[in-house]
Structure formats: structure tokens, C-alpha cells
């Protein structure tokens, strides 16, 4: 489904600020895989996400989606296959447009945008049905501007918008990190149920170790632009936060340096 071979990226090459963001990443996801990614600050997790979504292109290496080489395509072309939720709740929605208009934009993700009306009666019914899954009563507020919603509501809407068109790949970039614990829990629960129901192939970056262990069927740990640990389906079930931290220290030779890390 998603295949990365020897993907590498260097920022500011040759300058004093040179930074190896990704050093030969190999990663393959089967359809339905749900991979959680953890790692310390600057490990390359976000760069990896940007590399897959097309915000960045690799210096060397290949990215394939469904067998198609996509690493030279810009972000707006790769979005045919990819749904994405950002960390910032403000990033995934247009605040001055209504809920239904935002959904219409997401609905057109893999279609040609022409002069047909964005919101039709049939689409509105579909949007209401989809919003109902969030249990936030947003289905009664289709004409409210998204800027009036709370951060948690906006993030739940972003999640719905990224997923309801059944993307081949779902990228979640610390999408609960900016929310308070209750909202984060709500969005996590929604994520779990939507990914399960739609059988989405998912990559999720998180700072929450407990969440990384609880969600998904695979876990990878990154450090300094490399994948230093891969935990498969069977071993993941027995994993604990303590064991994960110990593992990290023994492989990387330093402590998990992350001011935001949540042990769970």
C-alpha cells in the first residue's frame, strides 16, 4: 500500500546548520496497517509525514503508494490518495467558511473541481449522516462558520474531513497534542473507531507513549532520522511504557529527550 525505500533528506546542505532529517528510511505498510510512530524531538517524524504527503520531496529514495511512484508529485496531486490531520486544530479547516462548505471541499478531494455546486441537497444529507458519527451535534450546525467551533470540535471535524472519502492512506501528525486531556481522549476514540470501521491504512505520530502502545498494530521508534526499533503485531501486545523507554535508551545510547513526552 505504502512503500518507502531509502528515503533521505538533508536540510541546509553544506551550511553550518546542516541537518540530516531522514537517513535512508525503509518502511512498508500493508493495507489496513495502523502504525504508530514515536521518537524524541528532531527524530524526523514530522519530516517523514511531510515526505509522504508531498510537502517535501526526498533528496534520494522512493515513495510508492499502491505501487505508483509519487515522490516527485507535489502535495496537491498526492492528496488523491492521502488524508491528513495536522497537530494544529486550526490547520485542517477553513475558519471563515461554514461546516458544510468545509466538508464539500474535503468531499472533492479526489475529484475535479468544476462549476457544480459544492453543497447539493444529496451531499448535505450525506454530510449530516457523517457528522452524526462524531456525536458532537455538529449535524445541526451545518451553516455555522468553523471558526466558531472549539479546538476539539475543529479537530474532530478535521478527522472526519480527512477520512470520509476513504483515502488509501491516513496521516495523523500528533493530532491530539494541542488539545486538553478530555478533548484529546474524544478525538483519540473517534480516530480508533473511524480507522477500524473504514479499515484505513494509517500512520500516526504521537508523543503519548501509552497511546502509541494502545493504538494500532505496529509501532516504530525513530531517532536522528532513522528507524531504530520496529515492533510488530505480536510483540506490541506485550509492550509497556517502561520496556519501551528502556529499549530506546539501550539502542540509542541516550535518554528519550522530549519535553512534551507523555508516559500515559
Amino acid at each position, binding site marked *: 500500500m505504502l512503500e518507502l525505500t531509502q528515503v533521505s533528506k538533508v536540510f541546509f546542505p553544506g551550511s553550518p546548520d546542516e541537518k540530516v532529517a531522514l537517513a535512508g528510511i525503509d518502511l512498508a505498510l500493508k493495507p489496513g496497517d495502523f502504525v504508530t510512530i514515536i521518537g524524541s524531538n528532531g527524530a524526523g517524524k514530522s519530516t517523514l509525514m511531510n515526505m509522504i504527503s508531498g510537502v517535501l520531496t526526498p533528496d534520494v529514495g522512493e515513495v510508492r503508494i499502491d505501487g505508483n511512484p509519487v515522490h516527485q508529485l507535489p502535495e496537491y496531486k498526492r492528496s488523491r490518495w492521502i488524508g491528513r490531520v495536522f497537530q494544529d486544530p486550526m490547520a485542517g479547516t477553513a475558519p471563515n467558511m461554514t461546516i458544510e462548505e468545509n466538508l464539500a471541499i474535503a468531499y472533492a478531494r479526489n475529484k475535479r*473541481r468544476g*462549476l*457544480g*455546486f459544492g453543497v447539493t441537497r444529496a451531499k448535505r444529507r450525506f454530510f449530516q449522516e457523517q457528522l452524526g458519527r462524531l456525536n458532537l451535534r455538529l449535524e445541526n450546525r451545518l451553516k455555522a462558520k468553523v471558526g466558531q467551533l472549539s479546538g476539539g470540535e475543529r479537530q474532530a471535524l478535521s478527522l472526519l474531513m480527512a477520512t470520509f472519502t476513504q483515502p488509501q492512506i491516513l496521516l495523523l501528525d500528533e493530532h491530539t497534542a494541542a488539545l486538553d486531556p478530555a478533548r484529546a481522549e474524544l478525538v483519540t476514540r473517534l480516530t480508533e473507531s473511524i480507522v477500524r470501521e473504514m479499515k484505513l491504512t494509517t500512520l500516526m505520530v504521537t508523543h503519548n507513549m501509552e497511546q502509541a502502545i494502545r493504538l494500532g498494530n505496529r509501532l516504530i521508534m525513530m531517532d536522528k532520522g532513522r528507524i531504530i526499533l520496529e515492533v510488530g503485531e505480536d510483540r506490541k501486545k506485550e509492550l509497556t511504557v517502561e520496556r519501551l523507554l528502556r529499549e530506546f535508551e539501550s539502542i540509542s545510547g541516550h535518554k528519550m529527550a522530549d519535553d512534551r513526552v507523555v508516559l500515559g
Partner: protein
Amino acid sequence: MLASMIHSIPGAVQLGLLYAFMSLGVYMTYRILDFPDLTVDGSFTTGGAVAAVMITHGQSPWVATACAFLAGCAAGSVTGLLHTKGKINALLSGILMMIALYSINLRISRVPNVPLINAETVFFGVEWKDWVLMIVAVLIVLVLLDMFFLTDLGLSLRATGDNPRMIRSFGAHTDNTKILGVALSNGLVALSGAFIAQQQGYSDQSMGIGMIVIGLAAVIIGEAIIGARSIIWATLAAVVGMILYRIIIAIALQIPWFQAQDLKVITAVIVIIALVVPTARRHWKQKIAARRRTAELAAAAGARRGGGQ
């Protein structure tokens, strides 16, 4: 003086209707795309020049007006290309295009002033018919524009100004939506220039100077009076704002002390007031609210301490 002020209003409303195409264009770039586009000063003249030259060469005035719209679109798309593909700052790409258009407009009209005396224009020369024509023309453009903003393409254009990162992640190419938006905007501006040239009976090399500020004034006045609850209200506000602006100017010019050449400074002052006052008011409101809240919290804390003793 009062009589002459009232007498000047119908003419002001007519001008407002014709300039309304321009304020719709400015609304599109300034508010929707968040792209302060200065091409307007040039493309307004382009519209007037294209229409005047084609009419004096015996073309149908409606064909000439349509061509003026297209010429404006072409000018706008160059600005859009400079900004998106050339990576030139938005303001600077507009200024560059505006300067280039000074020469291009003179090339189009060959002389600085093209008279349209006795030429056939879109106007009938009959008062009530011209009123109907202007109102219908504005309404048609307004409705078409509102409908466009509700299409899939229109939504992606609006999202480009609202949250470019989001719309890219949903597969729209923001370079293309920006170019399209700036092109359409300048098409509307040129359309306005074409109507104005036909209404005043000539096109003039300097007729576009200061248009961007007038457009901004109209957009801001309209928002202050009508608001921007939804896209339909916001476009209507741009039209009403332009009519009000024209009325304000017409009345101001009836005050004996003011002279015609003061028009641009009056416009600048209106825009400055409209930009500064809301920000200052918001700042003061917040300050007052914060003070009140602090006092409340202090009082509550004091009460708790008092109760505990």
C-alpha cells in the same frame, strides 16, 4: 447647499453602481484571496482604453465591454503568475504590473485621451433606461459571482485565502486558484473601467489612479454597514459600500471649502479611519474587559478569604 447636496445623490448612486464592479474585484483579492492587488490602478484604465478604442473603431459597445473584461483578466493573470510562479511578493507583483500597464494602456489607446462623443455606447441616453441597465447589470454580476463562490471551484478559491495549507491537503493547486482569482478580479475592475469610460464619454490615461484605495474604502464601508455574515452578504456589502462611498464623496464636494482635487485625500482619510477605528476599539474593549474581570476575580478571592476567617 443642502439642495445641491440632495441633487447630487442620484448621479452618485449611478457612479456607485458602475464602480461596484471594481469594488467586487477588490473584495475578491483583498478579502477572499488575502492578496492586496495593486494591478487595479492599471487594469481599470485598461478596461476603459480597450472599450473606448474598440467603440471608436466601430465595434459594438457590448463586444467592446466584453473584450475590456477579458483584457483585465489577462492583466490579472500576469500578476498572479508573477506572484505564484515568480515568487514575487504580492504587493510588488501588483505594483510591477500596474507600472507595466501604464505603457501598455498608452499602446492600446495611442493617445492619452480617447473621446466617445456621439459614439454609440451601452447606454441609451434615456435616464430611466440607463437606471434599469445599470441596476440589472450589477445584479447579474452579483448573482453570477455569488453562484460561482458556491461551486466546488469557488469554494477552493475561498479556501485558498482562508487556509492555503488545508486546501492543498485536499488536492487544490493554490497557484492556480490564486491566478484564477486575481484574473477574475481584474476582469471585473476592467469591466468597471469600460462602463465608466462610456458613461463619462471618454477614456483617460489617468482614470485608474487611486482606484485600489477607492475599492478598499468601498469594501470597508460596506462591511461596517452590512457585515460579512456570509458570502452573499459580503458581496452585497461591496456593492452597497461603493454606492455609499460615492454619496459621501458627492456630498463632501458640495461643501464649499472642498475642491475636486481633494477627492483623493478624502478617500485616503476614509480608509485610514475605517482601518484604525475598529482595531483601536477592539483593543480598548479588551483592555476594559480584562480590567473588569481582574477586579471581579480579586473581589471573589477577597470574599473567600473573608469567609474563611
